[in-house]
Structure formats: structure tokens, C-alpha cells
């Protein structure tokens, strides 16, 4: 089956296959990032702006701010979790408290479904 992904409730949630999986208001460590000048951004997620799939990863661009320096804006693409087997549909979220590396994606990543 296809994996359905979208942001929900004004960007409060990443929904995967109609299940609310990743929420805003967590702190994410972002390394190797262009978001701010900090070596590692201590990033407060305030809203999911865009969601995409780069199989098997589910990725998002997230609005928020670095609570260390105060820079606010939208991140590059951050991996939010994985759907390893689309037939099974099980979503495995990443742990926000570990360190994440945002990526600039080279192709348009706005398929509503893939």
C-alpha cells in the first residue's frame, strides 16, 4: 500500500497513515546545519511546514527556533522517521533527543503520497 504522509492540525503533527506520529514542541539537536551559527542548533520544533518521503525516510521541514541563539525560521529537510515496509506501513520515529543532520534535497519533495 502507499504511505500517506501529511502535516496535521495547522502543522502540529506529522501524520503517517492517519496516525499522529511526531509532534511539535520537542527540542531537536541539529548538527552540520545552516539554520543558525551554532555548532549544534538546540532547535525547538514549532510547526511542520512541509512533509515528504524519500523512501524509506519520512522527512519534514520544520518551523521553529534555536533556543541557544534565538535564530528562528524553517529547517532544511530533517528525517523524522522511516517506513521500512510500505506494505506493512509501520512507522519508526527517530528520537528527537539524538543528533540530526538536516539535508538540502536536490529534487522537489512535495509528493502528497508516494
Amino acid at each position: 500500500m502507499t504511505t500517506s504522509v501529511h502535516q496535521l492540525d495547522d502543522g502540529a503533527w506529522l501524520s503517517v497513515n492517519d496516525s499522529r506520529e511526531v509532534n511539535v514542541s520537542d527540542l531537536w539537536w541539529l548538527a552540520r546545519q545552516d539554520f543558525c551559527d551554532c555548532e549544534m542548533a538546540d532547535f525547538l520544533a514549532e510547526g511542520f511546514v512541509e512533509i515528504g518521503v524519500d523512501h524509506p525516510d519520512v522527512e519534514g521541514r520544520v518551523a521553529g527556533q534555536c533556543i541557544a541563539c534565538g535564530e528562528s525560521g524553517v529547517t532544511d529537510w530533517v528525517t523524522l522517521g522511516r517506513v521500512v515496509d510500505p506494505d506493512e506501513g509501520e512507522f519508526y520515529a527517530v528520537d528527537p533527543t539524538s543528533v540530526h543532520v538536516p539535508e538540502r534535497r536536490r529534487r522537489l519533495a512535495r509528493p502528497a503520497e508516494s
Partner: protein
Amino acid sequence: MASKVEGWKDEVYGEEVRDHLFRFAEEGWSAIPDEEHDAWFERFKWWGLYHQRKGQESYFMMRVGTPNGRMTPEQLRVVGEIARDYATGPVDNPEFGDAYCDWTTRQSIQMHWIQLQDVPEIFEKLEAHGLSTIQACGDSWRNIVGSPMAGRDADEHIDAWPVIKELNETFKGNDDHSNLPRKWKVAVTGDTRGSGQAEINDLGFEPATKDGRKGFNVTVGGGLSRKEPRFARDIDVFVTPDTLPDVAGGLSALFRDNGDRDDRFNARIKFLVDEWGTEKLRRVLQEEYVDFELPSAGENLREGYTYNSGRSDETGDYVGVHDQVDGQNFVGLSVLVGRMGAEDVIELADLAEKYGSELVGLTQRQNIVVADIADEDLDEFLAEDLLEHYSPDPHPFMRGSIACTGTEYCSLSIVETKNRMVRYARWLKNNVELPEGLTDFHIHLSGCTASCAQPQIADISLRGMKTRKDGEPVEAFDIGLGGGLGENPQFADWVEMRVAADEVPGYIENLLGIYEERRDEGESFREFIARHTDDELNGLAEPEETSYEDPYLGNTKLTWYPYADDSDMDAAPTPADD
């Protein structure tokens, strides 16, 4: 490409959602197909039902829209009874107990822990008493806001209530206006206080006079959400009560046809006004949506506005005893953060009826007003036990504090709100000496940038944040100063960022000390802030730990309900939604 929500709305939306809702209610929660949850929850909003956050699956927040916040005592009792009978959650809230109503900043009513199977019964009870949840949420005409005492308030330019009723009847359940690109918030005010807060609504009608005729000037495109606050823009149009509905309908249709349906973050009409400007908006309205010549704006009454205005001479918030046009009185009662226990709601309804009141009203400051109290009954009414808690003469820190829903139920919020604001207000009342003459002081606490507690228009603006304290994440606030409406509306300047929540009361104490020491004679707090530059405001006062204790400070992990003994997500007593 139209957004996913637009796709769901194209399939089923508006009135027809009700039949599906009742079918699911009859068959039970599990009848909603797993893969259709998000679509149905989006559609249910149109009927005032908002699925609660993760960990609270199968429970809904129910919103009842009461135009201008107006109810009869009988309707108020019905609301209290529904809260008592259907809105009791699995765990008590430590400040508010087991069942309560929230009076919102848009004069609506919110109740939590509503279950799908109870919806038909609740709707039946509401509708039997002239109440409804229709379009309380979702992409359509929301609850119309304005003076709860329209037609009774002695400080009134024009009684707007008849035309508000007409708008409500015309645009609720109206197929032509039931599916807009986004929410559509309307304010209509005929009083002289400015209590409609039209400045922060998508569409506003404010009192005005033109050529000796009383009516309204029209403003479009206000709103506070998402760090993109806008005051509504004057489109240079005057309407009378006769022409107001046509202009309101024309602007709603213009928004329906021209708003952004591809990007929900860009969909509110404030962004269309940014893009077009007011001249084009007016021209398109004139050429395509109304069939009479639009008169230019009349003379407004803004100079006299007192509602949330930061004036030192007058407070227009309805709290206290006020004259009615018929010689009776209305009495505004302070409801701290707008949350009132269900039994108290019922008791107030009984009291209102006992004293012959035919009207109670909710205000945008989350308070409640009881109308029609005769002079000879006034002392007795004011001596009622219930008014000790819901006071007509509250301490300024209790009177001026409002808060949104917060992490208790809301997915977007970053912090606990209502319970914390209660603790802030109590601590400030008990520990901070008020500067002499300070009778009104507004603290608006909002959990996130959605700004449901209208944080940008307060003396002290608090917006939910996080920070680290000793390396550990804690709840925090950005602090803004100097916001308010009145003659010259102003958004707050954000001057202290990421202040740990337990240091906010100390900051306010320190700031008020500086105000008392340095203010000019007769200078209101807002005026004092306004004469300082941004640079001067940054660091004007220091955040500080005090005797205030904050039990919610470290609540940074998602729980199913923060006040449960076992609050872990795994302990949620709800069916999983996957």
C-alpha cells in the same frame, strides 16, 4: 496543487458531515476507518468537534458558538449540565476538578473529553435550547464576536444585536459560504468601548457615523497567528445595518473565490490583503460582489475606545456594575483564565434566573456578565456566595489574566497555560505590591504562536517557549511588552526571550517596581512602556527566581495527560489510533 485538506473538503464537508457524525456515533469509535481518521477529524471541526491530542484518542473538544457570547440563563444552565454530564475526563485537573467549561477569547464555550457516542444526545439538548456547535471550528464563518451587552449597554453608539442575529442566521449553514479557504472570523461592534476587537478579526465592523447616519466602518485582514500579526486594514467603506449583510456576504464570497487553497499557511485573508492592498480589495468587492455603490468610510469612534486599551482613566472590560439603558444594571464577573466548574455554571444560571435576568454574556476577556439586575436587588446579588470566587471587583492580577488551552489538551502548545496562569496570578496577588493607581493590568499567556490568548495585545505578553536550565529542558516564555488596542492599537515588542517559567513572576515584580519608581504622574503602564525604545525595554527588568514554585517547569515530555498519577503515554486509557 490544492492542499490535502481541500481534497477532503471536496469529498464531504459542511452540513452533510452531520449524518456521518451520527452514523459513527451510533456504530462507535471503531467505525471510523483507520485510514480515514485525519479526513474525518478535519471534517468534524465544521460541527464544532476537535479531536483531542495524541494520548487522548477518541475524546473530543466540543465548541459551542454563542454570537457575542450571549445566552439566556436557561441556555447557560444547559451548557453547565452538558459539561457536568458529558465532559468529565478520566483524571481530575488539580486546579479545576472534574468537569468545567472554558469561556474562550472569541466568546465561545469549550468542553473537553466529549465522546462520539454522546454527540447526538448533546446536539439534541443544545438545539432544543437554541444553541449549536455549527461552524464553531473549520473553514467557514466562525462565531461572530462583539458586545455581549449590545442593546443594553448605556455606552452604546448603535445596537448591533439585530444585524448580528441576521448575520448568524444567514451565514450559518449557508452552502455558498460553508467551505472557505480557511477560518473566517467576524466582529461587529456598536458600542463605544471597542469591545469587538475588530482589529484582530478577518472582517470587522466598527461603530461610525456618516452624514448624520449611524453605522459601521469596515476593516479586513486582521489576525494574530503564526508570528504574522496584522491589524485589520481600513477598506474605506461605510455600511448601515441595512447594507452590512450584503457587504459581509460579498467579502466572504471574495475570500471564498480568491483565498489561497494551495497553502493553508497562506490562506487567511490577511495574506490576500497583503498581496492585493486595500484599494484592489475594495475595487474587486465593488465590481464583482455588491450591486450598489459603496460609500466611503464614516467618522469612527476610536478615540473613546476603552476595551483592552491600557488607559489609566477607564477600563472597558465589563467587569463590575454598569448601567443599562433601561435603568437596570449588568454585572461583570471575573473568571480567572475563563475556566468555570460545571456546578458553578449551573449555580450562576440559577442565580441569574432568580434575579430576573434574561441575558448572560461571555466577553473576549474570558469573563461572564449577568444582565438585568434591578437597583433594589443589586446589593443582595453582589452578596451571593458565588460572587466571592467570581468577583465583580477582582484584584487586577486576577482581572487581567487570560490564558489559552495549553498542553493539557492542545497539540500546538509548547507549555502548560491555564493552571500556570492561575498560579502566577495568585502569587502576584499575594506577593507583589501594586503600584498606586494601577487598577487594570493585562497578562495574556499563550502556549504557542497560534496566539489564541491574544498575547500580542497585552501589557505583559507571554508566548510559550522552551529553554535549558542547568542543561535540562524546561518550559519558558518569550515576554513582550506594550501591546494593546484602543485608539492606537499596538502589538507588543518582544523584549525578553526564553525566560524559564519559574522566573516570569519575578520579572513582572521587578518590572512593576521600575514602573512605580520611574513613571510620570498619571502615566499608565502602557504609556510608560510606549515612551521607551526597544533598546531601553530590552533588559529594563531582570527575570528572577522567587518564592514562586512551578510544578510544571519540567513537563517537557509528551504525556497522555499531565495530571495523571501515571502520565506516560503507555498508560493512556484510550484506544490507540493506529
